[in-house]
């Protein structure tokens, strides 16, 4: 029998019921079934480089503390005091061995000299006289998530039975690598610029994921920015040297929900085309990086990602601008977007500045590209609540039935450049989670050592 979720998001017909964006009950189910189980991106190791550095991040609606302990291990803990629920940390970032609740001063530590496990309860005012032996501190630590680090990115899940992160990512990892790796093709960790852009957008969180997983059809949204020539080298929107040499297409991963617009696997670098004609320093470095890339990658497999999304709410740009974004749900009708930006650590200062400024005029709430997206998302979201339109589905039919497997990548489907296959596939995965059987997907098989 077809579950109610697959009736609401009918990928075989390309029809999506608008209630999935606005229904409060479905939203609550998403918070439990998706955000309580899926691997979620929570930050980058570059945000907490030193022992006891921490940031506060989010997993769905939940505030979490992402902390590095004295041995360099990273822990993710629910930012809620086990005693009576106050947030134990209200700073965006800092350095601390312990977190003391401002309400009744229960304190929790990540220092192995003080506690057995990071996040354990350490200090309780009046422990002897008030609790007189009835409180076992080891049972009252902060709730902990399962954590994995992948090439600098930090991921966490509340489901301790979840498969490991590489299994969860499947062959999408190659596309993620294209964003995380050095531009020279090596897996040298990127630097993250200081500062997280955080802003509220009054639309459902899934609309953000849809947009970045490869909705090339919405390119018309960005006509105004293409007319303004904002690319770092003076080109229209970006300087897409790489994709001008390879055919771009949309790829999604069956049974995983991840998707992107980028290239199919290829085995050699395109010919060098200069990217920064007006800047000798940037041009020389770019040329040198190209030569290193040819050498590092040899005849190995490589892909290019323009934009991609990992189920459920993480997305990235692989080339320009190099940025990672999360769509945190706030309510059915609102999300909070968080953006960070990456750069190779050996980029000359001049180019670093050129790119940083380009990132800021492209992305974020003041981004000349991103701003046009949110106007569309907000009004589209509002229509999901329209009483006259209830029961009238949205149309996700582009490219229906026109798919082929991608050679060399497990469970990967090529839908062609302009298609809604990626989004239909996302909703199949959405239904897997809501049905409560996300880990039964046949696509969750161990990969052969990730993206190297």
């Amino acid at each position, binding site marked *: 029998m077809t579950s109610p979720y697959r009736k609401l998001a009918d990928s075989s017909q390309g029809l999506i019921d608008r209630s999935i964006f606005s229904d409060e009950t479905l939203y609550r189910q998403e918070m439990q079934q998706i955000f309580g189980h899926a691997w979620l991106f929570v930050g980058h190791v570059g945000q907490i480089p030193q022992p006891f550095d921490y940031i506060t991040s989010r997993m769905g609606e939940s505030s979490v503390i992402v902390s590095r302990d004295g041995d360099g291990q990273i822990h993710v803990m629910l930012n809620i005091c086990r005693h009576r629920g106050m947030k134990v940390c209200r700073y965006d970032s800092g350095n601390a061995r312990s977190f003391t609740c401002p309400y009744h001063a229960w304190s929790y530590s990540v220092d192995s000299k003080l506690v057995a496990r990071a996040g354990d309860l350490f200090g309780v005012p009046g422990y002897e006289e008030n609790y007189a032996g009835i409180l076992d501190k080891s049972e009252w630590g902060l709730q902990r998530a399962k954590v994995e680090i992948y090439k600098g990115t930090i991921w966490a899940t509340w489901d301790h039975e979840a498969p490991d992160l590489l299994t969860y990512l499947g062959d999408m990892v190659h596309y993620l690598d294209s964003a995380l790796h050095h531009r020279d093709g090596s897996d040298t960790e990127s630097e993250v610029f200081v*500062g997280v852009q*955080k802003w*509220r957008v009054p639309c459902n969180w899934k609309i953000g994921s849809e947009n970045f997983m490869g909705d090339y059809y919405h390119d018309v949204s960005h006509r*105004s920015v293409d007319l303004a*020539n904002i690319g770092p080298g003076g080109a229209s929107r970006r300087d897409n040297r790489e994709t001008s040499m390879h055919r771009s297409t949309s790829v999604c991963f069956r049974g995983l929900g991840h998707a992107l617009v980028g290239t199919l696997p290829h085995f050699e670098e395109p010919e060098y085309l200069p990217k920064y004609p007006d800047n000798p320093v940037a041009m020389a470095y770019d040329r040198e990086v190209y030569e290193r890339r040819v050498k590092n990658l040899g005849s190995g497999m490589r892909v290019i990602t323009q934009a991609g999304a990992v189920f459920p709410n993480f997305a990235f740009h692989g080339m320009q601008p190099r940025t990672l974004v999360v769509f945190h749900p706030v309510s059915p009708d609102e999300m*909070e977007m968080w953006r960070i930006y990456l750069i190779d650590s050996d980029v000359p200062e001049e180019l670093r500045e050129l790119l940083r*400024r380009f990132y800021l*005029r492209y992305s974020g709430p*003041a981004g000349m590209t991103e701003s046009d997206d*949110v106007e569309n998302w907000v009004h589209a979201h509002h229509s999901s609540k329209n009483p006259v339109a209830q029961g009238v589905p949205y149309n996700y039919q582009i490219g229906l039935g026109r798919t082929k497997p991608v050679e060399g990548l497990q469970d990967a489907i090529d839908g062609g450049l302009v298609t809604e296959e990626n989004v239909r596939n996302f909703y199949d995965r959405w239904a897997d989670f809501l049905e409560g059987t996300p880990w039964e997907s046949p696509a969750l098989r161990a990969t052969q050592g990730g993206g190297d």
Partner: protein
Amino acid sequence: MAHRDRVMLAADIAEFFYQEADLLDERRFEEWLGVFTEDVQYFMPLARNMRHDEIGAEFTSDKEIAWFEEGLVTLQQRVKQLATGVHWIEEPLSRVSHLITNVRVLSDETCALGREVRTSARILVYQNRNETETVLLAGKRLDTVRETTDGWRVCRREVRLDQNVLMAKALTTFF
């Protein structure tokens, strides 16, 4: 500088800011670009929740991530984008009022590029988009204005919004 001279100077520069606000609120964006010097730095940092003894790092600095970091060329690009008629976040155009107050002179010095006056002010920016959408943003503005043969010109502007998580879906208004 004598107190009276400082107050007169502040009033003179405030008048310049009010004229600028009129250009923005009357959507005379091309003319608005004329209030800046060629070398203008236009910067709006992020505000972070920091512990009391680290509050000096509340705002992101130069070379870090900001809401805006512009020069004259990119401000021109933004004005060009507004003029395309297909910049959906400002099509139709928002209704915006810029209120500027508490204008004070911090310093008045002459450097190689001419006389430069550092000022501080408060801003309150109200925006109505489409039908009922409204955004209200308040903050501090630190401007350096340079005296030119055509009058005052802004050569550096730092806008410190009183927002951590920005409660606006986009920033398409100038400050």
